């Protein structure tokens, strides 16, 4: 005899996964995620005037600026996304000849000469617009060169000049001893990297709530529930829905992870060479940043805690959605009921984002203990050092207690709710059912 529980889980899961829409949506998701991870490459592949020139031809009429210009340019070129691909060439050709030879958007001519007052002046010639960052670097390098030559001519010795030209050493001092420079890095991490992980979690909760609500309501409104419940107990049915929806979330999360890795792998081999987005993510760079800021060592225990809290939260959300779905009499009713659930999740998401801004907020700390929100708030607070392991342990204990209560009383409500088709005295019926 087939195990009825396993069979119910299988049917629920197949109903969700063996559909054209599941395949279409996930293919689209993979394409979008891979696309977003490689958006600069895609934009560049369509062409446009945004490409960084590949060569800078310098025509130095003064004969004394070129070396200085190159040196100053190299100091500033780290701001370019791909400085290695730039070639700096000194030319002896006539300016007019050089201008005639420009036949693409990859070449810039920097024409340096002395003006009537014997000061350096320059002309930048190109076929089209020049990337703003590159233009600023060229301009800065010329200015610095002019300044250096002027200082030399004013009989300031080389050592003195080196001191003047050296960048100002800035020592960062934070008077609050509990803070460190590393926490600034953490704030960056919270602002840029953390949402990348939290958004899919939020999305999966929405999937989870919709799946469980949709399925229970479909069986209820078609009265199939009466046939099902006459063959398996409401407890078996309820638990099968919980397990199936959580397995579905696990499968969906795996697909998202695979899509993410696929996107980064594609990026590794096809990354755009000359176009800068300003926020170029690279796992290696992020990891190095985490190691240097000391966050990597914290992540060793924060990551398992986060995964545990996420799993428990999925379970809690699915139980809540299942109980509420059993009480509603149509999918439209459930859609209204699911709104507060989603809003709770959204509130958790925003509070986790606000945590670095309102550092030490007692309100956010209290909210971090509340089930349904704790998985979104506790891990970032722990990462920022605003709460300790004890606080997270309390959050986990509260979350497990909430799951236990929902299991104990929820099944009683579910048993009555799934066969109730009337909204009259609904809450009274449910409270009565919960009391047993």
């Amino acid at each position, binding site marked *: 005899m087939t195990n*009825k529980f396993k069979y119910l889980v299988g049917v629920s899961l197949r*109903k969700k996964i063996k559909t054209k829409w599941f395949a279409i949506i996930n293919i689209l998701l993979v394409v979008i995620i891979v696309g977003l991870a490689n958006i600069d490459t895609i934009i560049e592949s369509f062409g446009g005037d945004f490409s960084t020139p590949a060569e800078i031809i310098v025509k130095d009429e003064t004969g004394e600026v070129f070396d200085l210009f190159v040196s100053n340019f190299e100091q500033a070129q780290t701001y370019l996304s791909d400085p290695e691909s730039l070639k700096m060439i000194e030319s002896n050709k006539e300016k007019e000849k050089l201008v005639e030879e420009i036949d693409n958007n990859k070449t810039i001519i920097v024409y340096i000469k002395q003006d009537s007052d014997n000061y350096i002046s320059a002309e930048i010639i190109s076929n089209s617009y020049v990337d703003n960052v590159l233009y600023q670097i060229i301009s800065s390098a010329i200015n610095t060169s002019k300044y250096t030559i002027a200082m030399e001519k004013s009989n300031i010795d080389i050592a003195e000049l080196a001191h003047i030209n050296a960048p100002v050493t800035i020592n960062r001092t934070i008077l609050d001893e509990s803070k460190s420079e590393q926490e600034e890095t953490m704030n960056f991490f919270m602002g840029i990297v953390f949402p990348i992980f939290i958004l899919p979690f939020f999305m999966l909760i929405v999937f989870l709530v919709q799946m469980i609500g949709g399925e229970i309501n479909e069986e209820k409104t078609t009265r199939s529930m009466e*046939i099902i*419940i006459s063959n398996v107990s409401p407890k078996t049915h309820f638990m099968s829905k919980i397990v199936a929806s959580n397995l579905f979330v696990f499968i969906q999360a795996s697909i998202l992870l695979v899509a993410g890795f696929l996107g980064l792998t594609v990026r590794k081999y096809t990354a755009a060479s000359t176009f800068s987005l300003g926020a170029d993510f690279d796992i290696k760079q992020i990891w190095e940043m985490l190691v240097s800021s000391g966050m990597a060592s914290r992540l060793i225990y924060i990551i398992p805690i986060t995964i545990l809290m996420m799993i428990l939260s999925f379970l809690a959300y699915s139980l809540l959605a299942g109980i509420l779905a059993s009480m509603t009499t149509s999918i439209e009713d459930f859609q209204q009921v699911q709104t507060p659930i989603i809003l709770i999740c959204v509130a958790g998401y925003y509070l986790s984002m606000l945590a670095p801004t309102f550092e030490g907020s007692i309100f956010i700390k209290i909210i971090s203990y509340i089930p349904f929100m704790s998985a979104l708030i506790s891990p970032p607070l722990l990462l920022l050092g605003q709460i300790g392991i004890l606080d997270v342990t309390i959050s986990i204990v509260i979350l497990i207690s909430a799951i236990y209560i929902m299991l104990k009383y929820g099944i009683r409500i579910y048993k009555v709710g799934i066969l109730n088709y009337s909204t009259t005295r609904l809450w009274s019926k449910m409270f009565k059912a919960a009391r047993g």
Partner: protein
Amino acid sequence: MLKVQNITKSYGDLKAVDNLSFEVKEGEVFGLLGVNGAGKTTTFRIIMGLLEADDGTVTLDGKPIDYNMTDKIGFLTEERSLLLKMTVFDQVMYYGVLKGMNKIEVERELDKWLKRFEIEEYKHRKIKELSKGNQQKIQFITAIINNPKLLILDEPFAGLDPMNVEMFMDTIREVERNGSIIIFSSHRMEHVELFCEKLVVLVRGQAVLEGNLKDIKKNYRRKNIIINGKVDKEELLKIEGVLEVNKKKNETEVKIQDDSCVDKVFEYITKCKNITKFVVEEPSLNEIFVSKVGESYDKQI
């Protein structure tokens, strides 16, 4: 044997079922009748174990009905309890496996019944693509796929054309011959008369009429006299004990209080001309039902 003993179920102040008892033996078809809201569905749900009775017991072969026993029960609900997005195969497999059957067994039985109901081509079609009648056939198949010991049929002929009603009737009779206990509910009394040997009529949860159908008819005092010939309606109504006279196409139906006025009516028609038929008939179940339900409502009001 199915034994329902003194079951009572209330929803707040409303008594949905009030001290109801009946027994159904193997190979019997039992009619559970009543107007909408009379308590039939609640009774079915209590029998199926979906609801707990406030009082009373339900046993099948002496044992209370629980999840160890539901594999032996078939249930056809009044509403279409089918998942419309599923295919016929998936739907029947779903319910079949939940009734404890293995997948090979379910498919074998499904093929047999699809062939019997002449809808083999719909095996892999979605339920929502089928006509109402064919959906009802699928629902019926899900109820009998496990060769149930107890079969509950709530309005089994809803949405069926006369040909398909005949097909269902043959099948129900076959299930009856195989020794199953069948509880049957329908608003169509002619169907109930065809199947049920015993019945109970519920009004607001209470049994207002129960017993063997033949005895119920026999004991029901009112009778009908069918006359074929030229009679005067007004003259007939003057006879003591005549309640109603209905002129039909070629016949006149005379409803009488009891057997005592048969002679008086006969005496009258001997004076009439062209009389070719004079038959005293038992009333139909429909008449008894309407009369009993009406009386009960009057009493309760």
